[in-house]
């Protein structure tokens, strides 16, 4: 069954997945950038801070040695003893040298080299004993003393890394929770769509009531109202079809009843004439059922058309001529005349359908007027409008019945049995398909007119 198997690209077409993917990707990208930036920023700031410590320590030493060389021996021991005490996490060991301007050393820390480090004044990175060091060299204002403070770059890096790691870690820890939150938010936001889909999916084919507009999210409302319009049209079509089927069944009942009862009469009749009569009536009943069926099918085919399938150029005058010659054979005893314009009356349409419409109008005139009535087939310009139709000088139609004539299966009070009750409905449908007006009217001087009229084309 189609629809039950998951489509291969179902995920790529799912709004939820697309949304989730986009949101996740954006979130991860932003967090990644944030992490990288925070990391480098934190490292940089840590370096700056440690450089600051170097400077502070160097100046402190310089202040201690200036003009007072006497207690320097003592200072080295004191510093060493202080250093062995408990350390702060970010306190990295400082090595230092204090010397004179001529390069002789006055004082140095335990791990500092015995000779003066060859470093440029200010901050410099040098290598000593196979390890890189960060060195700050400052001189006293008098120029007599020089202080160098050094820090192991390995240690500095470890500290800076630690700071940066601690800055970035919370972001990394929180992001799964945020992703989860995003996932549920997207699901929640799209839930009305799921509900809408469930509502449509759970419907029975008969249920064409409109969907609730207000329950749908704003973005889905155009879809909902389009669906509702479709439901409306479907509902109209369905109820039309149902009515048509019911009407059709109704119309076929009477001829079938005729066939049945006359057949029983023929069976029961002892008299040969009665039997013959009943058999004749059966034939007439069958003919009528056939005619009703033909017209029904014709209408059923015309009904769903939105326009003419193959419009071509049709000469109405020539078409009327043809219908008349057919009719003369069938109704030789009736007075039928053709009123046609001399020039061609060209419209774009379907000649077969127009002939059916005209034949139906002619049939009605023949059927519902007394034998002496003159029937005129019109294919001419009347009041400047192209007109195709039938006019008779018979008794006309009671005004109250006029509007009901085009109703399907309606037969006027003067109706005889032979009609299908569909002839005018078909003619009207043909007129619609040809963008013509369908007019049924009693004429002021007596008589009845049934015409298709094409509005005058706008002056070119």
């Amino acid at each position, binding site marked *: 069954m189609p629809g039950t198997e998951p489509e291969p690209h179902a995920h790529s077409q799912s709004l939820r997945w697309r949304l989730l993917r986009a949101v996740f990707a954006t979130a991860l990208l932003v967090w990644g950038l944030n992490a990288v930036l925070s990391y480098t920023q934190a490292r940089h700031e840590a370096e700056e801070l440690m450089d600051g410590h170097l400077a502070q320590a160097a100046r402190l030493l310089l202040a201690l040695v200036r003009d007072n060389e006497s207690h320097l021996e003592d200072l080295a021991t004191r510093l060493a003893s202080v250093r062995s005490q408990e350390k702060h996490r970010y306190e990295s060991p400082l090595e230092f040298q204090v010397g004179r301007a001529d390069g002789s050393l006055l004082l140095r820390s335990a791990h500092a080299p015995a000779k003066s480090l060859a470093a440029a004044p200010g901050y410099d990175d040098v290598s000593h004993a196979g390890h890189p060091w960060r060195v700050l060299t400052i001189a006293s204002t008098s120029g007599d003393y020089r202080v160098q403070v050094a820090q192991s770059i390995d240690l500095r890096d470890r500290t800076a890394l630690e700071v940066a790691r601690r800055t970035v870690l919370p972001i990394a820890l929180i992001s799964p929770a945020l992703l989860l939150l995003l996932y549920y938010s997207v699901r929640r936001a799209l839930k009305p769509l799921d509900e809408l889909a469930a509502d449509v999916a759970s419907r029975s084919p008969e249920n064409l009531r409109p969907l609730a507009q207000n329950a749908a999210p704003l973005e889905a409302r155009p879809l909902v109202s389009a669906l509702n319009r479709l439901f409306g049209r479907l509902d109209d079509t369905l109820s039309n079809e149902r009515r048509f089927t019911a009407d059709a069944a*109704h*119309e076929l*009942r*009477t*001829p*079938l*009843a*005729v*066939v*049945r*009862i*006359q057949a*029983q*009469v023929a069976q*029961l*009749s002892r008299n040969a004439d*009665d039997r013959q*009569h*009943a058999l004749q*009536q059966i034939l*007439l*009943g069958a003919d*009528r059922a056939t005619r009703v069926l033909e017209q029904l099918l014709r209408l059923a085919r015309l009904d769903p058309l939105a326009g003419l399938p193959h419009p071509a150029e049709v000469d109405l005058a020539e078409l009327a001529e043809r219908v008349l010659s057919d009719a003369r054979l069938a109704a030789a005893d009736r007075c039928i005349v053709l009123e046609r314009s001399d020039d061609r009356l060209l419209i774009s349409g379907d000649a077969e359908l127009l002939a059916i419409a005209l034949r139906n109008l002619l049939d009605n005139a023949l059927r519902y007027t007394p034998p002496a009535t003159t029937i005129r087939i019109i294919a001419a310009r009347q009041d400047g409008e192209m007109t195709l139709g039938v006019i008779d000088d018979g008794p006309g139609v009671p005004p109250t019945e006029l509007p009901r004539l085009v109703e399907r299966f309606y037969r*006027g*009070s*003067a*109706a*005889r*049995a032979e009609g299908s009750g569909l002839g005018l409905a078909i003619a009207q449908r043909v007129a619609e398909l040809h963008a013509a007006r369908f007019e049924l009217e009693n004429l002021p001087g007596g008589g009845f007119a049934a015409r298709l009229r094409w509005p005058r084309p706008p002056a070119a």
Partner: protein
Amino acid sequence: MRILLVEDDPLLGDGIRAGLKLADYAVDWVCDGEAARLALLDHAYQACVLDLGLPKRDGLWLLKDLRERGNQLPVLILTARDSSADKIAGLDAGADDYLTKPFDLFELQARLRALIRRAGGNATPRLEHAGVVLEPASKRVSRDGQPVTLSAREFALLRDLLSHKNHIRTRAQLEESLYAWGEETGSNTVEVYIHHLRKKLGAQFIRTVRGLGYRLGDPG
């Protein structure tokens, strides 16, 4: 037994009339509501078969009009409208029975027999008097258990008399019951058929009420 048939379809009307005639009913057939209204005012019928979709006056209107005038005539509606709403409307308007097209002729005849029987206050399907039994459905007549052969008119006359037991039937009433419109009635045909029936069923079976008409004789 005279029946009014109201049906606007010529082929169907013709068939029903022929079918009811085969059951020895006299059938008056009209094609529109107005003609039916006038016929019902002018004549006494034993039953009416009524189509609903009629020109001029609708069948339901006709039915309501009939009942408003207090007429108890049995009416069987015959129509192509088959929804229960239509049936309910028909029965509520005063119809006694309902048949949808297409239908079986025998069923129509049987339903009419039942309607006429019940209207005569008689629930049993047999009409009986003084040893004479008439079965309307099978059209069989017997006297003291012995089958009696009757012509169609004789049968119709006997059925009328048995349906109006204890009533005096005038010659005009019997004629009306026997003949539909357009059927020739001789000046003394009723007397002729009475004579035939007396010969077949016994001289005392039908009594003449002088100056009034006929009635069934006392049993025994």
